């Protein structure tokens, strides 16, 4: 079966941006196309899969058709992929499968979200829409509250406390400080992060990612095309995806995300790799507790030791066996819902090609993992990318 590589990647800066959906997508797509080593015209792209939750409703229906119309890809097969915050992780997987199936040779995967042009009241109606509306929202839960329930239970079950989450926030802000596309480029001290405004006890403002605008785009190609168009293709070595019950109360455990474990198992198996082989991981730290659990679910830390992993600084860039979230993660780089998954892949692509800012370039990176979670863990896509196939 054909192998698949990423030959181009681009994204907008994440943040509170003046541009609209169309403008952000056009920018990300142009950057992705321009990054193809040996040149690529948009007319050669055969399909597009674009993740978006249509947050706020700027263009709820037929979003992908509108996006491709503004990026020179008119007329091709397109669709919007929606799986909450994991929308573009799944869009990427769908694009990968399109090539794997033999249906197309050059396919775009992207993601986009516009979150900051809403009034505060309207924004609150949209935040948390990907939880179980009927049973969780009526219990007063939005995602900060849902992850707060997970955090408190985690502290109860394991040797961990809020300080461990503070270490995650401090690390990711330090990483994101050097990232030119990050939403919040600000380092924070331990004391400041420990004393943040309480959002949902025990989670403070510094435990929560920002709501960001942004778009991301990557170009995937079949091996025989990739080797012609790119001198340094990044190979998709493993892809896994899974789901779990939507509502937290239906799940087997509140302190692990089984969808992550299932998706990671598939991706590792396909790649023929294990957690110890991963040099860099972009994990879905929508809240700091999510990174602690992800490090366990993905096998970087033992069960119950994700807090210790953070406390010991084992994910800090170039200081241990693995770097976690060199981009700053969702916490600092930002979280434009539909864009986040492919945004992680843009980061991995650039790290593997030594194209990020020198101060945050991970040394000798061979294998990377991107972990994109929808909601509080109802969906998850995991991809393993590498220099060699």
């Amino acid at each position, binding site marked *: 079966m054909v192998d698949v590589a990423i030959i181009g990647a681009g994204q907008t800066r994440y943040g509170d941006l003046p541009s609209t959906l169309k403008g952000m997508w056009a920018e990300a797509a142009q950057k992705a196309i321009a990054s193809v080593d040996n040149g690529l015209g948009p007319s050669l792209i055969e399909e597009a899969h674009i993740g978006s939750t249509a947050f706020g409703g700027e263009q709820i229906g037929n979003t992908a058709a509108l996006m491709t119309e503004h990026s020179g890809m008119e007329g091709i097969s397109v669709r919007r992929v929606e799986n909450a915050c994991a929308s573009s992780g799944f869009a990427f997987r769908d694009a990968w499968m399109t090539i794997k199936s033999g249906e197309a040779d050059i396919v775009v995967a992207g993601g986009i979200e516009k979150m900051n042009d809403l009034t505060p009241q309207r924004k609150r109606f949209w*935040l948390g829409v990907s939880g179980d509306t009927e049973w969780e929202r009526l219990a*007063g839960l939005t995602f900060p509250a849902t992850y707060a329930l997970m955090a408190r239970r985690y502290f109860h079950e394991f040797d961990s406390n809020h300080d461990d989450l503070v270490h995650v926030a401090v690390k990711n802000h330090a990483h994101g400080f050097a990232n030119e596309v990050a939403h919040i480029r600000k380092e924070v001290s331990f004391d400041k992060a420990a004393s943040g405004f309480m959002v949902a*006890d025990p989670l403070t403002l510094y435990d929560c990612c920002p709501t960001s605008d942004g778009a991301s785009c990557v170009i995937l190609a079949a091996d025989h095309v990739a080797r012609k168009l790119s001198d340094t293709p990044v190979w998709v070595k493993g892809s896994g995806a899974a789901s779990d019950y939507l509502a937290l109360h239906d799940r087997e455990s509140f302190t692990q995300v089984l969808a992550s474990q299932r998706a990671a198992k598939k991706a590792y198996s396909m790649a023929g790799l294990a957690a110890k082989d991963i040099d860099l991981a972009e994990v879905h730290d929508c809240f700091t507790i999510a990174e602690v659990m992800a490090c366990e679910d993905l096998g970087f830390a033992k069960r119950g030791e994700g807090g210790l992993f953070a406390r010991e600084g084992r994910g800090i860039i170039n200081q241990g066996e693995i770097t976690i979230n060199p981009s700053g993660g969702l916490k600092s780089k930002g979280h434009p819902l539909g864009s986040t998954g492919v945004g992680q892949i843009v980061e991995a692509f650039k790290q593997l090609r030594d194209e990020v800012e020198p101060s945050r370039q991970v040394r000798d990176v061979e294998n990377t993992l991107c972990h994109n979670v929808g909601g509080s863990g109802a969906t998850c896509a995991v991809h393993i990318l590498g220099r060699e196939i």
Partner: protein
Amino acid sequence: MAANECIPFHGHILCLTPSGVLVRSRFILDGDRVHGPDSDHTCLAITGLCALADECEITTIQCSDDVDARVISAYGFNVVTQNGEWKIVAHKDASLSITRDSSMLNSLADDGEEMDSTFYLQMRSAWDEELRSVSQGAYVSEQQYLSGLESRLRLLAQKEGGKYIWPGRENNSQHATFPLKRKGIVESWTRTSAAGSPSEFALRSPLLDGMTTVLLALEGGAKGAFLLADDEDAVAEIGSHVELVIRRIYGQEGLIRYGLKARCS
């Protein structure tokens, strides 16, 4: 008839008499009995009916206009529009009687907690405004709310592999359902900030200085998330036991959504 024996029950005051039950809010403002932060006559009626059902068999119920008959019915009581065995009669204040002859009971007991007048007026105003609001995003329609109401209020669970599942799954809709005990043990909890609650609670949450949600282990392995009733000062702790009582959840487009909320027992 005047009742002399009154007890706290479901966060209200329950007075049993030979003629029936009198249910009163435990809150008083300037000498008048007023509803609590998330209660009304429908909540008082359920409380009274639960107490009455412990004493005798209830065949049929006839509701007054101040009580949402759909909620009474969903809770498991047989509501009729005329010739009901028991009649719910709402008083002008925050109390009601449930009797066979539509008589209004009263109590000589002068019990109750004084409520802050500013807080009371702000909460009532917030409820009124909330009822006029419309969704601009997430939305539980009247149809969806009503279709799940019986399961929500009676905790109707399905049994699968020796374990209870609540709420049930549609693919198992032919399975028998079992009402779980309205009790639970706190497995986790959080208190959201005033700005951290869903938009449906945006007007009341600041008045309550945030809202508390508990994640409960229910009977037989089922679990569920619930708001705290009355959002009182009771502190939730992992491992503590709670009872589930009916309260208002939120209002939208003219419809109050009711559900179970947790009270520390």
